[in-house]
């Protein structure tokens, strides 16, 4: 520094601050600072201003909008946080401050817990988490929409399970970004898209496990709204069992994993086969019982006709069981072919009751390949199911 006369040259204020700023910014690397948050203020510009303090000292800090946007929630007064950033000097005031790039809340769940609880209370107050809002899932969906990353393991898990259990299913992938910037709105968009098609019977929304930050998109209000608004029941499958997200709470059914969601969404092929086989047995048994109860009405010609009916009834059951799977045209004629017999009077009317059979009356017993002229010997009324 060159002195002129007795008076040393003075620096301008700006020059001093510029030098101080240079020293602060180059003298220290980016660092993590831990302390208590005080006076947190989110400005309308989106920048957040706050103080960090411990028992004996305080630093002014700022988190600019682009970084502040990533916070799940604002920290509470007095909350212990860790902040990554670097020191600088705010030249307009000559104050040194800490420019934070990241802020993590310490303690259980940190800021995530605060955001979660806040949204939980809001949605709960609106009734969106009420158990009575849950819709039943279809038992046999034809079309399953899947909202997830097109490149994630979750999709592969879901496809694998569906292809094993219910390969007749049509899967509609509604691809979405499941983590990072813009993921919540992209997921919400994909959920709405899947619902809007009018094709899906059920929608699976999910992703594989990850850190709380990875799963955070599923705790966003926009996804909660999209799920609540869905015209189709939604199964959530976010991460692993221990992570419950807002999406899980709003969904109609919460599955612990994407594979479990797929298992819940579609029936198992073997189960379906059993179900159909049971239905077939019940059909045959139902018809069998129909004939058995009605045959009481036909005990008209004593033992002889009765024996005919008994015989046809026995044969019919075996043949029904045998043919049930491949009957093409089961018309009344087909029924006759398989052993039913229908008594008709001279005018071709079906005789249904003992009242219509008078001893000595002639009637035709219509069988598959023709008719058998019969005559009533006597009638025995037994109270049937109709009477």
């Amino acid at each position, binding site marked *: 520094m060159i002195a002129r006369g007795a008076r040393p040259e003075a620096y301008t204020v700006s020059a001093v601050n510029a030098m101080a700023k240079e020293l602060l910014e180059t003298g220290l690397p980016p660092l993590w600072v831990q302390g208590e948050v005080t006076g947190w203020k989110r400005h309308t510009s989106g920048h957040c201003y706050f103080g960090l303090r411990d028992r004996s000292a305080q630093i002014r800090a700022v988190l600019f909008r682009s970084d502040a946007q990533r916070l799940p929630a604002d920290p509470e007064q007095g909350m212990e946080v860790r902040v990554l950033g670097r020191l600088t000097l705010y030249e307009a005031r000559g104050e040194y401050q800490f420019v934070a790039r990241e802020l993590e809340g310490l303690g259980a769940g940190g800021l995530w817990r605060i955001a979660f609880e806040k949204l939980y209370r809001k949605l709960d107050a609106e009734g969106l988490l009420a158990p009575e809002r849950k819709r039943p899932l*279809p*038992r*046999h*969906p*034809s079309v399953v*929409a899947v909202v997830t990353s*097109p490149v994630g393991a979750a999709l*592969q898990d879901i*496809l*694998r399970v*569906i*292809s094993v259990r219910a*390969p*007749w*299913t*049509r*899967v*509609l*992938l*509604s*691809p979405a970004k499941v983590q990072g910037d813009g993921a919540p709105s992209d997921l919400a*968009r*994909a959920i709405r*898209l*899947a619902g*809007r*098609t009018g094709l899906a*019977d059920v929608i699976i929304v999910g992703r594989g496990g990850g850190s709380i930050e990875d799963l955070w998109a599923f705790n966003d209000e926009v996804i909660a709204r999209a799920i609540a608004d869905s015209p189709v029941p939604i199964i959530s499958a976010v991460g692993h069992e221990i992570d419950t997200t807002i999406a899980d709470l709003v969904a109609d059914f919460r599955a612990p994993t994407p594979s479990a969601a797929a298992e819940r969404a579609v029936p198992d*092929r073997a189960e*379906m*086969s059993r*179900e*159909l086989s049971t*239905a*077939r047995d*019940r*059909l045959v048994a*139902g*018809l069998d*019982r*129909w004939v058995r*109860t*009605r045959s009481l009405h036909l005990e008209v010609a004593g033992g002889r006709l009765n024996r005919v009916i008994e015989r046809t009834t026995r044969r019919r059951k075996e043949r029904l069981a045998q043919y*049930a*799977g*491949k*009957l093409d*045209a*089961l*018309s*009344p004629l*087909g*029924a006759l072919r398989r052993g*039913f017999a*229908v008594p008709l009077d001279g005018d071709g009317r*079906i005789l249904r009751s003992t009242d219509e059979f008078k001893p000595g009356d002639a009637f035709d017993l219509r069988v598959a390949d023709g008719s058998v002229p019969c005559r009533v010997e006597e009638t025995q009324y037994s109270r049937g*199911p*109709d009477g």
Partner: protein
Amino acid sequence: VTEEQVTLEQRMKRLDAILAKLENDGIELDDALALFEEGVSHIREAERMLSDAELRIERLIAGPRGSFEIEPVADDTD
């Protein structure tokens, strides 16, 4: 509703209704046979669907003004 448009869900619900009717007493021969015939055809169609083991995977693509398109996706789960 044509045969093609009947979903598995509709079929299974109809089958339940048929069984309930058939297992109920007050029906006539023609009705019983018709129900049986219909039930069998639902079972047959459902079984055909079960054996129709081709997983169909498609991707939804949003279009302008709420429209959408569907394109097939190759299944690479194997």
